[in-house]
Each structure stands twice: as structure tokens, then as C-alpha cells.
């Protein structure tokens, strides 16, 4: 009898890791098992996904990172999902992207993707098509990437006179992270906010 539901735990952590995925080493560390054992659990879960047609996910490995993905045969439904925007709301992805641009403009796509942790091409297309954002220039340096900013329509749509009317962001949100590398981003926010 198996006392610890390794597969369930693995599914949990891979799910939460999202598109970032997890390396075998990270998986072994989180589960507190040897890498060999981790490998075994991975293969078990992989097999479950493959065998069971009632499961919509698969476990893929890319560049040494394991991650969950939707099964290829369900692509047609995902396509429909994209074409059926949620009761004509902007998607969560688009709203996130818009928030980042609104508060941090001008900003490049790569910077946005760093913050979101996922690719952001599609949300940018959607927002640009709706004229809520636009290219406002080019970044200095190597790639000379496009810089994005919000538009007049953005202000109109949300009933703002100017960007300074955007609600302030919380100061305390990142207290616990103090001294941690991650939140240069947040410091920037506070400078803006300050």
C-alpha cells in the first residue's frame, strides 16, 4: 500500500509551477526523495495521463524541465476557447498585461513576460487591436525592442482624466520579500507610486 500519494503531489506542484515547469532536481527536493525515485513518480504520472482518456493533461519534458500541458487532441476546444472570449470580457491574461503596462509604461514585451512568467504575445495583440495600448518607442540597446504604453482610448475607456488617476498600488504587498532579489519590479512600482 502506498501511504503517500506521490502522483497527486507531483500533479499539484507541476500544476502550480505552470509554464515555468520544474526540473527533476526541484521535484526531488520538494518531494524530499532521491532523483531516481522522482523519475519513477514522473513516469507513473505520465503513464496515468496517457492511459486515461478522461484526463485532459499530459506531462511533457522540455529542456530538462517537466511541465503539464493540455493534450494535443483537445486543441480544437482550446481554439474555441480563444474564440469565445468570456462573455466578451478581456481575458485574465490581457487584463494582467494591461495592468503591467499601465503602471510600468513604457515597457517591452520581454519585461512584461518576465513579470508574468508566461509568453504574452496574444494578450499584446488583443490589447493593441482594441487600441488600449500602442507602441510608444523603441528600447535602447541590442534588440531595440518595442516599448508599449497605454492610449487615450485606455483613459477614456476606464474614465480616467490622466494616468495619475490610476488607483495606487499597495505599498505593503511585498513587505515579506524584503532584501530579496525578486522585487526590483516592485521597487520600481513604488517609485512611480511614491
Amino acid at each position, binding site marked *: 500500500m502506498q501511504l503517500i500519494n506521490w502522483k497527486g503531489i507531483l500533479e499539484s506542484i507541476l*500544476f*502550480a*509551477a*505552470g*509554464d*515555468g*515547469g*520544474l*526540473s527533476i532536481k*526541484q521535484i526531488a*527536493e*520538494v518531494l524530499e526523495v532521491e532523483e531516481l525515485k522522482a523519475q519513477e513518480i514522473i513516469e507513473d504520472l505520465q503513464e496515468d495521463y496517457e492511459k486515461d482518456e478522461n484526463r485532459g493533461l499530459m506531462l511533457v519534458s*522540455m*529542456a*530538462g*524541465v517537466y511541465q503539464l500541458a*493540455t493534450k494535443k487532441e483537445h486543441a480544437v476546444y482550446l*481554439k474555441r476557447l*480563444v474564440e469565445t*472570449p468570456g*462573455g*466578451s*470580457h*478581456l*481575458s*485574465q*491574461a490581457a*487584463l*494582467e498585461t*494591461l*495592468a*503591467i503596462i*499601465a*503602471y510600468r509604461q513604457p515597457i517591452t514585451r520581454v519585461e512584461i513576460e*518576465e*513579470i*508574468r*512568467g*508566461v*509568453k504574452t*504575445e*496574444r494578450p499584446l495583440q*488583443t490589447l*493593441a*487591436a*482594441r*487600441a488600449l495600448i500602442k507602441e510608444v518607442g*523603441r528600447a535602447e540597446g541590442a*534588440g*531595440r*525592442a518595442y516599448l508599449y504604453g497605454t492610449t487615450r*482610448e485606455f483613459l477614456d*475607456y*476606464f474614465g*480616467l482624466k490622466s494616468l495619475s488617476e*490610476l*488607483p495606487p498600488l499597495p505599498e505593503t*504587498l511585498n513587505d515579506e520579500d524584503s532584501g530579496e*532579489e*525578486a522585487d526590483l519590479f516592485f521597487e520600481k512600482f513604488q517609485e512611480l507610486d511614491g
Partner: protein
Amino acid sequence: MQYNVKIEAFEGPLDLLLHLINRLEIDIYDIPVAEITEQYLLYIHTMKELELNVASEFLVMAATLLAIKSKMLLPKHEEDLSEEYGFEEEEDPREELVERLIEYRKYKEAANEFKDLEHERSLIYTKPPSDLSEYAKEAQSDNADLNVSLYDMLGAFQKLMRRKKLQKPLSAKVARQEIPIEKRMGEIIELLKRTNSRKSLNELFPIRERNHMVVTFLALLELMKRQEVLVEQEGNFAEIYVTAQEGGAVDATD
């Protein structure tokens, strides 16, 4: 500073009063005003002694308590008088305060329940929406149907901020254990050869964790220097692609 924090455990005068009522095991519907006023003033006094900034609300409440106390001390004959005039119940000078305390107490307790809910919710983890660009057709361009508010945008952003915390998987642990550049070089070559195709730069940074990204970047530079990979960009601002060079020397199995 520590003291300061503890005194600020009281959200306001009502909170402090509730605390005193609780501690003195007093019936909230029959507060001994003299006693509670004395205790209350003692706290205020102590806060001042400590040179803490006593919010004006605390002083206003002190005055209110003193006023109630003096009303309670009014000569007994007035009560007789009111009975003569047929009042069933003399208005209790404490009544308004008691009502406020009871009302406030409801929300203070509700806040505790919210705290529990907050904790329960923090035990479950969700994932960001997947990138569905490969399924997308052209994006829509009419905003009439948009139906979102600034708050939806901020809400989405809050979700993102909450989620972000998970996207630094094991950064502390990983940071302590160095990722060997050689190993990462091997992984990159292995990926490029196995898939036998060029990869965009983005695809070579699967782990959005600073250390890993730095090592990946260094590994790529080293591979370029050793001419193990070819890096190309079609136009000035186009995506950068990486391809494995034929006859590279780095062992992909390592």
C-alpha cells in the same frame, strides 16, 4: 518599538473597551462605568507616559466615558421624578455606547472569520492562464463589448502578484547550489540536437529564476565562443534564434 506594536494591537477606543470588558469579565449590557473608565484612563495614561502618539479618538472616548460616568452619578431623585411621570424605563446613559460596542464587536468577529477564510484560501494554489497564441486568429478590435472595469484590471494584477511568489521555484535553495555552466551547456546542446530545430532565445530560458537565467545566458555565450551554436536574427528587431552547429564538441549526454 516592540511596545508600540503591542499597543497598536488595539484598533481604536472601541477595541480597547471591548478588551477591558472581556478581561474584567463584565456584562456588556451592564457596564460598571466608574471601573471601566478608570481602567481606560490608565491605559491612555500609560500610552502617554510612553510618549506614544495617542490618537485623538482615544481621547474623545475618554471624555465620553467621563460624561457617562457623571450622568450615572446624578442624584437619585431624578429617577423618582421620571417614574412619577410614568416613564417605564429611564434612559440609560450607557445605552448608546453599548450599542456601538455591540455593533463594532460583530464586525470585529466577522474580521476574524475573514482571517480564517484568508488562511484556508492561501492553502490552495492556482496557475496562470496558458499562452494560447497558437490557437488565436486575429484579435478583435471593437471595444463596445469589452465590459471590464479598472477594478477588473487591478484584480487581475493582484492575482498576478499573489501568483508571482510561486514563480521563483526554490530560488533560495537553487541559489545556494550552483548550477554548473557546463551542465547547462550540455542541456542546451542536447535540446537543440534532439529537436533538430532552431530555438528562439525565449525557449532556452524555461526557468524564470535569476540564477538559472544567468547560467543559461553564460552557457550560451560560451557555446557561441566555442562555435557550438549558431545565433541568428533575421531582422533588426526580430526574434533571436539559436541552432546547434554541426560537429560541435560538447557532449550532449553530460
